[in-house]
């Protein structure tokens, strides 16, 4: 694959109730990314956005984001999924040879719509919806129980992942302030409100208002913009079945496939040795373990024994990951931004040592039905 560089990025500070409208939030994000490298709107040749009609309260909602999203008289189009998928389409445009600078942004404001209730509308109208028992939370409960039961993993091990990520979020000034918990313990996690047994409130990525933006450019153009772009050297993407009942919820085949694809592209043979840090979008804490196993960091069911702290053997989510706040449609882009910061040494307070190669993931659907994985590398490679 030809190289595509990430030349700039910006993220709006997440909040449970951002004191601005969607329009300003998007403007601040896009303007912030361009300003981060001193570029202008006219330098942008293509725009891909990630929002959701329901979240925006408008059909074909990118009609109203044209101006704020920097897309006036540009070939903008929208992905109604996590922002990581918009990055994928942005990457393809950059690789097409027809674009010099692709702007990708995603975000939403869960303070303006009932996030978990809205996921009820993702369920199947024939078999699932009439019972009104399945939304993203109950799906997460089914997934966590399936994982715990399959591999005999105690709830404490999963709470430990939440503890690590909430502690990491406390070091990250770009995290949702409410997610920063430097003194959290496994007991606090296990004793927090039950959302959908065995999932408790502190094992769930809290929906919050935010948006994020990155700028992509093909190799030669990227090097004109800056000396040290972070390169996307691999990407993989896979989808599993829609019906939860058709899937083995204790593992993630889609993440395994995505990883295989991305690692082959980037020439990664032994993920555990060759990946220095992972920023994974986990909707629930147990998903981080399921992903780590799917990525080949360890055998199935061995996730809890991995050393994933900032100073550990394979640091996962030094930024706090999904636990540092989930801004629907932005979270995948935020994971990418955090992986970039680790490579460029900008992750002040939660920097992993000597990061050359990082991975970042985005997901969509119940129990991470689909996963998108990027391999990022620094240097002039």
């Amino acid at each position, binding site marked *: 694959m030809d190289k595509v560089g990430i030349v700039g990025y910006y993220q709006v500070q997440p909040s*449970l*109730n*951002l*004191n*601005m*409208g969607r329009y300003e939030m998007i403007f601040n994000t896009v303007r912030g990314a361009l300003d981060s490298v001193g570029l202008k709107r006219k330098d942008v040749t293509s725009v891909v956005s990630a929002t959701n009609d*329901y979240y925006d*309260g408008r059909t074909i909602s990118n009609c109203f984001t044209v101006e704020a999203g920097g897309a006036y008289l540009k070939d903008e189009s929208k992905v109604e999924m996590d922002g990581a998928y918009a990055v994928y389409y942005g990457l393809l445009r950059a690789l097409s040879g027809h674009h010099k600078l692709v702007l990708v942004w995603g975000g939403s404001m869960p*303070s*303006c719509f*009932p*996030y*978990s*209730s809205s996921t009820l*509308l993702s369920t199947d*109208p*024939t*078999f*699932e919806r*009439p*019972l*009104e*028992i*399945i939304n993203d*939370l*109950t799906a*997460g*409960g*089914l*997934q*966590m*129980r*399936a994982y715990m*039961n399959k591999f005999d993993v105690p709830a404490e091990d999963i709470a430990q992942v939440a503890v690590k990520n909430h502690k990491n979020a406390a070091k990250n000034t770009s995290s949702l302030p409410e997610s920063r918990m430097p003194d959290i313990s496994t007991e606090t996690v296990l004793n927090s409100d*039950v*959302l*959908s*047994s*065995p*999932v408790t409130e502190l094992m769930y990525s809290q929906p919050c208002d935010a948006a994020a933006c990155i700028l992509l450019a093909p190799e030669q153009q990227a090097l004109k913009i800056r000396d040290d772009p972070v390169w996307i050297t691999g990407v993989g993407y896979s989808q599993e*079945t829609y*019906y*939860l*009942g*058709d899937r083995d*919820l204790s593992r993630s085949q889609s993440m395994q496939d995505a990883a295989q694809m991305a690692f082959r592209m980037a020439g990664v043979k032994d993920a555990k040795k060759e990946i220095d840090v992972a920023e994974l979008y986990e909707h629930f804490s147990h998903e981080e373990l399921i992903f780590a196993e799917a990525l080949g960091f360890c055998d199935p069911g061995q996730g809890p024994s991995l050393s994933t702290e900032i100073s550990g053997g394979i640091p996962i989510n030094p930024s706090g990951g999904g636990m540092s706040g989930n801004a629907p449609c932005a979270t995948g882009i935020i994971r990418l931004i955090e992986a970039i910061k680790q490579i460029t040494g900008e992750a002040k307070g939660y920097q992993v040592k000597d990061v050359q190669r990082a991975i970042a993931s985005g997901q969509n659907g119940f129990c991470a039905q689909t996963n998108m994985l990027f391999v990022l590398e620094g240097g002039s490679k």
Partner: protein
Amino acid sequence: MVRLEYIKKEYEKTRQMPGKWYLTSCRYKFNITRFQPFLSALKEKRLIGLKCRSCNTVSFPPKLVCGKCLTRPDQWVSLRETGIVATFTANYMKDETTGEANAFPVIAVRQDGADTTYLTQLNPKVKFEDVYVGMPVKIKWKDNTEGNLNDIDYYDCIDDPTQKMDSLTK
């Protein structure tokens, strides 16, 4: 009984405009001709699943398309009324008079003879604490069946032979 609201936070500073989004007025069509054997069986209090001739997967509830093979399964196979709990969680319902939230088990049942699971509810009298993965369950039919999935009133627990063995050996 109403569904618990997950939204706790209220607006503080920004002014809000109320809006309505009539999503639930949408209609969904599905192929009743191809589904007829399934619906007729339900009316007779029988269960059947659809088997893909290409990969032999038996789906229950029946799926009109096998995603793995991109084929239309057309072989109906009989299933037993029993199954096991493959995984479970809880749904919380608030009692409007007392304001108390009660946990109701939501279960994924693997019907005996099927390869997929069905997300459904247990007998509301079964306590959430008593549910476990591997628990044997059996369909409780409605008295008057009409030929749709609601004919399954709920799943009820049945004696677990493995549990009895455990207690004997203890």
